[in-house]
Structure formats: structure tokens, C-alpha cells
């Protein structure tokens, strides 16, 4: 047994391919060349001062050199590497190589982990290549080594998250048009990520801003790490789900992770709210949670009707376990009901927080969104999703595929949000003409009667759910273990 026998086969394959890849070689040589030129330019620019007899050490050129190398490395790791990894994944999908991997006994998560592990090694390779320049920066003085190391570590962590995001987008993009749109969207987001990371890293080094001496100091890096880990794990489970064959039971990993992250961040928000004596963190958590649950509920809306045999073969014959599985397994009704329940639990948590505040809890300010606007949002989003489900089942399925049901819901939501404002164009107040149908109406300061808006959205959501009740009951009945008792098990 040698080391390759202990490695994930996908990592080994990716590394072998990278060793032969001209793009990786060109990237490495290009990075070294650009770094060399950049460092030379920084040193040459301070030549005038050097003539006056100031030694390099006293001048403290280290931070200038570090800034330059850090920026080059950030562009390479956050911009070039994710595209490289994403394009490789995309090309494997299009030339059926991934399909062939599904005929093996590799698990989908091994595919994702293998690719990420190889990408992490690539990140380490490029960071390692920058070490001579970073050492030079240290020798030139003026550089806090701990801050520089932490900034580099932060850059590497952001790069890993970008790799996860690239793999997710490559797995999600099944059509060429979608791929082009994603690349364009990614370009704009990446610009912000690259500039934000460079600015953050350099600020950390130049102001010696990061201290870990007290628990309070550790809160920001701790939150960054928790956020990073949450994003990576969520993207990992979502990518794993997307690379699974369509008939597989894709949803459990994603929904379980989201539920776990919801609980984890809810706890963090609660503790933070207690520490800061403000309910705002809970409200922000609730807002993000409701939006996320409905986003995934919308994705479930586009699931194929009925259950595939592979899904049913995993359904437990035990009743209580089957009831729990219903919320997490693949299926349109399953995902939508999960989103509905999780949203309701989030609202309940907000109500409890508000009650605690009213009951004399020490929270003093509550400038974030409160329960009522969140209820307007939740009821509207629920109403849209379940109305489109009913519409698709009763009418739209003749013209559009189930895959587009989620898109229809998103389009209607956008319409419901924008139309009241479009109708108000030209009016002297420029406020929305009506509130019904606008999920974000509760957050509008000009809204006069939030109670009636909440009530109308609630009635709409309840009606939509009632119309869907027969379909929901049928789905629950169909969700039964389908293993044929006559079949021989392997």
C-alpha cells in the first residue's frame, strides 16, 4: 500500500490531471512572474529614498511588498482558481465523464470532497509559491508576522469557500444558457469578494487590527469561521445533491444541513441578542431563515411529481420514522411542507423573543424587523408557493414542465413586489399603491395598516394550503416503503 491507496480516487485523478494541465503550469509561472515584477516595482519605487542613505530595514518596506503579493495571490486564488475548478467540473458533466463515475461505487460526496481536496492542494501550492516573496516582505521589516499569517489564512479560507461555490454552480448549470448567465452573475459577485478580501486582509495587516487576547476580540473571527464553515458545509451538501442521479433521494442531506444550520445560527443569534441587549440579531436571523426556507421550498416546487423508486426504497416501514422522513426526502410536497414548518418555527422563535422582551427581558433596543413584518413575508411567500403548486397541478401542467413551477412562483413574487411600486410611478408620494401581494410590504415604513395586510396574506396562504390539501394527503399516502418483499436482497 502506498500513499495513493489511502487517497480519495477523485483527488488522485484530479491531481494527476493538474500535474499535466498546461493551465496550472501557466498559472504558476505567470503568478511567479507577476509577483517578481510587482516586488521589483515596489522596491524600485522606493529607490529615491534609498539614495538618501536610509536602509531597507529602517524604512520598513515589508508591508508594501506584502500588500502587493497579497493582492496578486488573492486575485489568483479567488478569481482564477474557482473558474478553473468550475470549468473542469462543467466539462466533465458535458462529456459524460461524470455519468461514468455514477456507474462505479463512488459516493456522490466522495466526488465533491475529492475535487475540493485537490483544489485545496492547488491553493496550498500557489500560497507556497508566494512564500519566498512573503519572506522577503518579512526581511524588509514593517510587517507583523502574526497578522500577515492570519490574513493569508483568511484568504485561503475564502478561496476554499469560492471553490465550493464554483463546484455548486457548475453542478447546478445543466444548460449552456444557464451556464453563461451564472458566469456573468459570478463575475459581478467575485469582484466584490476579491476586493472585500483584499481590503479586509490588508486592513488586518496594516492596522494590526486583529487581536485574540480577549473573548470579545475573538467574537469577530469566531463568527467569520462559523459563517465560513456553514457556507462550505451547505454548499457541499447542495453540490453533492446536485451531482446525484435525478432519480436518487437527493434532498435529505441538504434539508438536514439547513435545519442544523438554522438551529446553530438561531442559538448564536439568541446569545448575541442577550449579550447586546437587542432583539435585532434574532430578527435578522429570522429574516434570512424565512427567505432561505422559501427559496428551498421554491426549489422543491420544481421537483418531479410523485416519488422515484429509489426514494421509496429508502422509506422506513416504521411509522414515526416515516413521518420524520417525509419532511426531508425528495418530493415536491415534502420540501414545501418542510419549508412551511421551518418558517412557522422561525416565526414562533421570534414571537418568543418578543414575548421575553415584553416580559422584562433586558433587551432595550429593537430596531430590526419585528414579528409582524416577518409574518407578512412568511404568509405571502407561503401563499405564492402553494398557489403556484395548485395552479400547476390543476392547469399549468398542460403547458409547462414541473421544472418551471418554481420559476413561475419566483416571477409572480417579483411581480407582486414590484407592481405596487410601478403603479405608483407619477404619484406625488412615490409609495406603493397597495400592500396585498407584496411579500416585503411589512418592511415599508409607509405601510399604515400592517394588521390587515398580515390578515389578508394569512387568509390567502390558508386558502392556498386548503386547495392543496387533497394533493398533500395523496403524497403522504404515496410515501410508503416500496421494497418488494419477494425480492432477494444482495
Amino acid at each position, binding site marked *: *500500500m502506498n500513499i495513493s*491507496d489511502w487517497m480519495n*480516487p477523485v483527488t*488522485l485523478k484530479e491531481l494527476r*490531471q493538474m500535474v*499535466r494541465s498546461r493551465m496550472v503550469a501557466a498559472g504558476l509561472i505567470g503568478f511567479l512572474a507577476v509577483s517578481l515584477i510587482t516586488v521589483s516595482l515596489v522596491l524600485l519605487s522606493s529607490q529615491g529614498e534609498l539614495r538618501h542613505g536610509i536602509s531597507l530595514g529602517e524604512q520598513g518596506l515589508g508591508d508594501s511588498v506584502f500588500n502587493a503579493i497579497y493582492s496578486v495571490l488573492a486575485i489568483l486564488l479567488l478569481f482564477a482558481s474557482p473558474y478553473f475548478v468550475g470549468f473542469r467540473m462543467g466539462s466533465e458533466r458535458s462529456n459524460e465523464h461524470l455519468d461514468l463515475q455514477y456507474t*462505479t461505487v463512488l459516493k456522490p460526496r466522495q466526488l465533491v470532497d475529492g475535487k475540493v481536496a485537490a483544489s485545496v492542494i492547488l491553493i496550498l501550492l500557489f500560497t507556497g509559491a508566494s512564500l519566498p516573496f512573503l519572506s522577503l516582505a518579512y526581511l524588509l521589516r514593517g510587517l507583523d508576522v502574526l497578522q500577515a499569517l492570519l490574513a493569508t489564512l483568511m484568504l485561503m479560507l475564502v478561496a476554499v469557500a469560492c471553490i465550493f461555490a464554483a463546484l455548486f454552480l457548475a453542478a447546478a448549470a445543466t444548460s449552456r444558457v444557464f451556464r453563461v448567465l451564472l458566469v456573468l452573475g459570478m463575475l459581478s459577485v467575485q469582484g466584490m469578494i476579491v476586493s472585500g478580501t483584499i481590503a479586509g486582509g490588508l486592513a488586518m495587516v496594516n492596522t494590526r487590527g486583529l487581536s485574540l487576547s480577549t473573548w470579545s476580540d475573538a467574537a469577530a473571527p469566531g463568527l467569520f469561521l462559523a459563517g465560513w464553515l456553514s457556507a462550505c458545509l451547505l454548499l457541499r451538501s447542495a453540490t453533492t445533491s446536485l451531482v446525484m442521479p435525478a432519480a436518487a433521494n437527493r434532498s435529505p442531506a441538504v434539508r438536514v444541513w439547513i435545519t442544523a444550520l438554522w438551529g446553530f445560527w438561531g442559538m448564536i443569534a439568541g446569545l448575541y441578542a442577550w449579550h447586546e441587549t437587542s432583539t435585532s440579531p434574532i430578527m435578522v436571523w429570522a429574516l434570512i431563515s424565512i427567505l432561505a426556507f422559501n427559496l428551498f421550498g421554491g426549489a422543491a416546487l420544481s421537483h418531479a411529481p410523485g416519488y422515484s423508486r429509489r426514494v421509496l426504497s429508502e422509506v422506513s416501514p416504521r411509522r414515526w420514522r416515516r413521518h420524520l422522513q417525509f419532511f426531508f426526502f425528495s418530493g415536491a410536497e415534502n420540501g414545501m411542507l418542510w419549508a412551511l414548518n421551518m418558517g412557522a418555527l422561525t416565526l414562533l422563535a421570534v414571537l418568543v423573543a418578543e414575548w421575553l422582551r415584553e416580559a422584562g427581558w433586558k433587551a432595550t433596543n429593537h430596531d430590526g424587523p419585528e414579528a409582524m413584518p416577518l409574518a407578512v413575508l412568511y404568509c405571502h411567500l407561503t401563499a405564492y408557493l402553494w398557489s403556484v403548486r395548485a395552479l400547476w397541478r390543476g392547469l399549468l401542467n398542460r403547458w409547462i414542465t414541473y421544472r418551471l413551477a418554481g420559476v413561475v412562483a419566483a416571477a409572480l413574487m417579483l411581480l407582486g413586489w414590484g407592481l405596487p411600486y410601478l403603479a405608483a410611478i407619477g404619484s406625488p408620494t412615490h409609495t406603493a399603491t397597495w400592500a396585498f401581494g407584496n411579500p416585503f410590504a411589512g418592511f415599508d415604513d409607509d405601510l399604515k395598516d400592517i394588521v390587515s395586510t398580515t390578515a389578508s396574506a394569512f387568509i390567502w396562504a390558508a386558502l392556498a394550503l386548503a386547495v392543496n390539501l387533497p394533493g398533500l394527503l395523496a403524497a403522504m399516502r404515496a410515501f410508503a416503503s416500496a421494497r418488494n418483499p419477494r425480492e432477494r436482497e444482495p
Partner: protein
Amino acid sequence: MKLEIDNLIRHFGSTRAVDGITFSVGAGEVVGFVGPNGAGKTTTLRIVATLDEATSGDVRIDGVSIPDYPEAGRRQIGYMPDALPEHADMTAHEYVDFFGRAFGFRGAGLREAVAEVEAFTGLEPFRDKTLKSLSKGMKQRVSLARALVHRPELLVMDEPANGLDPRARIELRELVQAVAENGKAILISSHILSELDEMCSSVVIIERGRLVGNGTVATLAGSLRPTQQVLLRALAPAPEALVRLLLELPGVADAHMRGDRCMAEVPPGADAVADLLAALVQRGARVVEFRPEQAGLEEVFMKVTRGETA
């Protein structure tokens, strides 16, 4: 090993790609899977290879349901799609080695399995060449090596001879026959019927997702034609007189000239052919050529299918 496909149905919306197919493949058998474009061949093979799921019906290997236990099926099946490996930055050896690892082989076992398939498929001289630099025939060998590296009991091949030159086709045919001689079951789809005719022990013909023929070519031909044709030539009597003589013989349904030979139609079966030869000799005919005509797969296919697609 026995593959059983039982009333397999696959619908894509209102399109019935596969519509109730039932057949089986046993160890050492080479079964040709033929049908017009869009008949549902690739869909069926993808379901067998666990890449797609049937709307209903079952695929079993030795009684184990593949839709229910896909992981168990994957160890038993070697799937060879029509797409060839095209990676520019991967050698043939690395490609086969990766799939060996993907099936859980490690250490000496892996090296042995890879060396075995490389030797079997004749890849050794090309093992360190990148996949993109290989010819189509060599890529097809790599693809076969990949499909066999985990020593499956069933080999599923989708259009393996597509785009190959005559030499590569003959070499592929020899490899397929060698695989079958090793006791493996082979299900092979192809449009090149003459190739299948030579290597298959039986054929399954589908059209518009439905099974329209299943059995050996001879059986299918027999079921399509009520009589069997025998081509013959004699030094005496003269051809026209020989036709008359044939028409007088008991059991001969028809006789006519085909080029410089005579064609007699007799009831199917070896007995009728033997009786015909004996009767001719008995009546003094000096027979120099006597050949029962076997209907080819092409003829069977053309008769069985109507050329309609799903």
C-alpha cells in the same frame, strides 16, 4: 449470472421510450440489442447501468433488483457508453487505474486488475499516451478496459463499433468474443448488423420501445419465413431441367433460378434439407454445390421492424 429485464417501462412525459420490454441474458451469452434510431435502446441500457430509473418494471441480476440496490448492481455491471474518453491531461493507464480505484481496488489487487485488463485489451504499448492522442479504435479499447477493470459479470455495450475502421471493428469483435468465452454475459447494441450477426448468440429487436423479436437469428428467420431456402448447383441435369426436377420432388414448395444456381424452398428444419439432397442424388443429379441459406440479421431486422421510431 443472469440478467433479467422484466416488463421495463420508461416514459418521458407523454413519450413512451421503453414500453414493456422483457428478455434475459445468461452467462457466456452475447445478446445483440437492435432497433431503429430512437427505439429505446440507449434508454434501456442506461437503466440497466443504473444511470436512469424505469417508470415501472424491473431489472434483476441473479434475482437482485438493480433499481432497489443500485450499488450491488454496479459491481456486477461493466457499462461502455457510445462516448469515447477524450481527456487531454490523462493517460490511458491513469484512466483505467482511476476506475479501478473507484470500484474499491487498492494496492496489489488494483495493480493486478489494471495490468490484467491492459494486457487483455492490448493497451500496454499505449498505456502512457494521453487519451486525446489515441485513435478511435484505441479509445474504444480503453473504454472496454475501463468497463472490465472491476471484473463485472455483465458487460453492457452501447454502440461500441460506431466510427471504427474495419480493422478496429474486427479487433473489437474478437475482444467481445474473448470476453464471452470468459463466461461473462454481454448485452450489446449496434447499428452495424453484420457485426452483431457474427458475434451474437441471440438478438433482441425493439421498435418504438416495444419488443418485436427475441431469439437466435435462425429462430427469428424461421418464424418469419414458412420455408427454408436451399441454393444448389449440379453438373447434370441442366439448370432448367434441375428446376423441373426439384418441383417434382415431395416437400419442395417452390424452385427457381437465381443467377447460375437453383433455389429450392423446403419446409424448415435439417430433415427436409437432408431429404432433398438424398432425393436429388437418388434421381441421378450430380450435385456439386448444396447450401441451405441462413437468413441474416439484416433480413430479419428489416422484416421485423417497420422503421418507425418512438
